[in-house]
């Protein structure tokens, strides 16, 4: 483990209502692994051009040290809502907490960006 904290980003689009809940869950999981939730970079994606530039495939998108918590499977960039699959198979507008926790933990172990 290194002293450098991983960069945590949350990208959102106003067409999906889930991003505030996603931020709350992300903050809880960051606290749980000893990261400061205030360090999250929260960015709104407003246009298709923004989405393309960010590689944004839907809201919310959460990246830790540049790694998506559930890497997209070829979805095109665009202003849309993200469909996550939880570990128990349910469809969700939010990623699985366990995926968040594992991604954060792996980034901490591997060193920040």
């Amino acid at each position: 483990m290194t002293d450098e904290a991983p960069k945590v980003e949350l990208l959102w689009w106003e067409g999906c209502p889930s991003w505030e809940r996603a931020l709350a869950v992300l903050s809880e999981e960051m606290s749980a692994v000893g990261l400061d939730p205030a360090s999250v970079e929260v960015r709104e994606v407003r246009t298709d051009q923004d989405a393309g530039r960010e590689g944004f495939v839907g809201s919310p998108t959460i990246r830790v040290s540049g790694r998506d918590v559930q890497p997209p499977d070829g979805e095109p960039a665009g202003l849309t809502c993200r469909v996550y699959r939880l570990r128990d198979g349910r469809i969700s507008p939010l990623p699985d907490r366990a995926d968040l926790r594992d991604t954060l933990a792996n980034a901490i172990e591997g060193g920040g960006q």
Partner: protein
Amino acid sequence: MAQATATKVGDSAPPLELPDTEGQTHTLPAPGEAPATVVVWTCNHCPYALAWHDRLAQVARDYAPREVRFLAVNSNDAERYPRDSLEAMRERVREEEWPLPYLHDESQQAARDWAAQVTPHVYVLDGDLRVRYEGAPDGDHMDPAQNASWVREALDDLLGGREVSRAESQPVGCSIKWR
């Protein structure tokens, strides 16, 4: 384009005339009207609509013997959201064996007429096609055990000749994708 005033509880439902995924036209009103009708705005790409879909489909199956009519409508702009194209809708209906017709509102006029806001957005109509419930299927898109209970309760009240006890709720989901 301007939208109509939101369709609310007590209002007469705006008429519908839309094709399903096989090209058959469905209308509201329809000949031999049902004792109750459920109209749900939904789509293929929204996690909320997808999470609630199985529950709503099961309601359609469970209430078919009581002659309740179900219509699903997709009004999203398929150019920007290809997963909501007619072809993609047809694939879903065939693969998932939908128990209700999936109507394609290509012009988005139906969504404007109803002022549907999100997917899913549920309307339960009585035999006179007045809105008796409007809102979400149930209280938690993440909990399948909720079983679209708000829709079921509204239907049970209507079919039992009672006032609908929970007449509205806040619809929760992805915004309709306008052109």
